[in-house]
């Protein structure tokens, strides 16, 4: 099987790696104690290796051992090359935080997880009572395509699956590879909840959430009326000011502006 390795280095000591397909892979975080996030979507054999180049090759009395999710992995102290260890990632419980410990001073963490859902809006989406809304979750083009998408709605722990075929007047789901769209129709105040999109991979699901806020038309109407009033007041003030100024000045016969005045040709002089 072929292996694709994408390497992105960030400052601050966090490194991202992406893996597609299976086979044996390794990667080398460099430098001091830090964390590497690894995204895996399907079962893979991974070899994790960590270097501690502070003393060139490791000093003889400092050995490395491995922990998963805070608990020591049995037998990791005694392997010949403790810094390099193969792991079989087969299902969801194999995901988690793998730590390569050097004595008690330093460690390198590898966080194995499914790919995250891309650019999800953190602010609520606003819509109106009686109107409809489209909620969108996308997986970045650089990441693997999920097997399927699921939508949930709920608050906190109370999550219920959305079944579009059961309520076609209310929901319509369009899941298309990397993008998932949920149309919600006939909105009401009760729909001001969190919606969750689950990108389902072989090794588990990634969750993105969107907050929906449903308001009535009176909400924007308040600033609208306020601004219209402001405009009316200003226009009236400016025009009244102008009228009072022209009254104070020389009395004019006829309307202000143009028209109504005859011109005597004899008074015409050269211009400028």
């Amino acid at each position, binding site marked *: 099987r072929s292996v694709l390795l994408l390497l992105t280095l960030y400052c601050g000591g966090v490194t991202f790696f992406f893996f597609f397909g299976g086979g044996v892979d390794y990667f080398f975080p460099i430098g001091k104690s830090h964390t590497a996030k690894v995204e895996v979507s399907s079962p893979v054999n991974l070899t994790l290796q960590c270097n501690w180049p502070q003393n060139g090759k490791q000093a003889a009395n400092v050995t490395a051992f491995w922990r998963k999710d805070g608990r020591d992995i049995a037998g990791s102290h005694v392997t010949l090359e403790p810094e390099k260890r193969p792991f079989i990632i087969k299902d969801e419980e194999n995901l988690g935080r793998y730590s390569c410990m050097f004595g008690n001073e330093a460690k390198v963490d590898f966080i194995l997880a499914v790919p995250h859902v891309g650019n999800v809006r953190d*602010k*609520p*989406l*606003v*819509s*109106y009572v009686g*109107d*409809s*809304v*489209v909620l*969108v979750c996308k997986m970045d083009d650089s990441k693997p395509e999920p097997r399927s998408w699921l939508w949930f709605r709920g608050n906190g722990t109370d999550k219920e699956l959305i079944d579009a075929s059961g309520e076609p007047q209310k929901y319509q789901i369009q899941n298309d590879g990397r993008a998932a*769209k949920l149309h919600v129709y006939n909105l009401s105040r009760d729909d001001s909840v969190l919606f969750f999109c689950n990108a389902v991979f072989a090794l588990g699901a990634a969750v993105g959430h969107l907050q929906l806020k449903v*308001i009535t*038309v009176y*909400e*924007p*109407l308040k*600033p*609208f*009326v306020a*601004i*219209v009033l402001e*405009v009316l007041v*200003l*226009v009236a003030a*400016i*025009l009244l000011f*102008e009228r009072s100024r022209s009254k104070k000045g020389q009395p004019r016969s006829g309307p*202000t*502006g*143009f*028209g109504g*005045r005859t*011109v*005597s040709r004899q*008074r*015409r002089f*050269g*211009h*400028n």
Partner: protein
Amino acid sequence: MAAKAASNLGYIPPDGGWGWAVVLASFISIGFAYAFPKSLTIYYKEIQEYFSVSYSQIAWVSSVMLASMYAAGPVSSILVNRYGSRPVVMVGGLMVCSAMVLASFGTSIVHLYLCVGVIGGFGLAFNLQPALTIIGTYFHAKRPLANGLAMTGSPVVLFTLAPLNQFLFDSFGWRGSFLILGALVLNCCVAGSLMRPQVPEDNLQGVEIQNERREKGCIDVSLFKHRGFLIYLTGNVLMFFGFFAPVVFLAPYAKHLGVDEYSAAFLLSIFALVDMFVRPATGLLGNTKWIRPRIQYLFSFAVSYNGACHLLCPLASGYVGLVVYAVFFGMAFGMVCSLLFEVLMDLVGAHRFSSAVGLVTIIECGPVLLGPPLSGALVDILGDYKYMYYACGVFMLVPGIFFFIMHYYNYKRLDEEQRQQQSAQMRTCGEAVQLKMDQEGTQE
């Protein structure tokens, strides 16, 4: 001098006083006219999903709005010729407001094309033309400065609308935002109320000219025989093919070179900030006694400078190079925008300006709309942005040089005509004096 001969208002404009309130009013109107279509793009992603259309379909809203704004130029000119600036601007403000309110209840994308695009575009045209025209009635000696200040409305309003639109969208969604934007744009009516019509007090020749215009009530097509107008029109039509595309493609080009999204957006902010300060500065420069009589050369320089910037852009390496380009381009863009209508006023005179600007905008409609898509096509076909920059550079450098040559010739002819006119006047004066002396002689 070319400047004095072109004034011909028939009265001495105040060059201050209430004129500054009019500059503020024009600032607001021009600001909304140019910035409003550009600022709506923030809603497009959401509206696109809502109506299930493609991005290019939603982007058409801005294009229709811009096209209507330019195409309605002559209509606006006719109305200003007939009724003056104030009523037209107030009607324009009401039109854009109703357009946005109607759009907020929209049920289809066509609804948006018609409301925001057509009605909104017309309303903005009814703001742009009168705002430019009225400056010519209030200013002569300080007109370049007044024009420069008024044109600064565009970047300032854009700068304000961008975060405001984001805030409105986060709080009210796109429908509520359109409703509130409709109310905000009603402030153009406030601007209109400030546009007090000029009443010439003593010199009645001005009234005569105004009366003549009222009687005609149409657009002055004899402008097509005006030498200066034709020079301006020809150069501008060519120039607008390459004018706006570099702005549209600044951020995409930066991203293409590997710059991240926020830094690319920051380039546009730098560009807008520089633009904002350069416009009034150019107005001040154009007002100086060295430049004012030959202000056409400053405009020619500004256009050529734009061209040079674009031709050199592909040499910019890395983000720092792009920042430098954004600064220089901002300066160039600001200079051209500041002088764009001032030089037209300088050429045709303030009383024919209204008709002139109407004719110019409808003819410029084509290149303004075609420029960015053609540039985009160039990028897609050739696969590299640098050819687009070379093309835009050429489309600006050639008119710039054209302007230099043609205006040199035009100034010479104008000076000649001025001399002929002055000597003819002296002759008639002398004849009149002679006649009077003869009359007095015979009367005695």
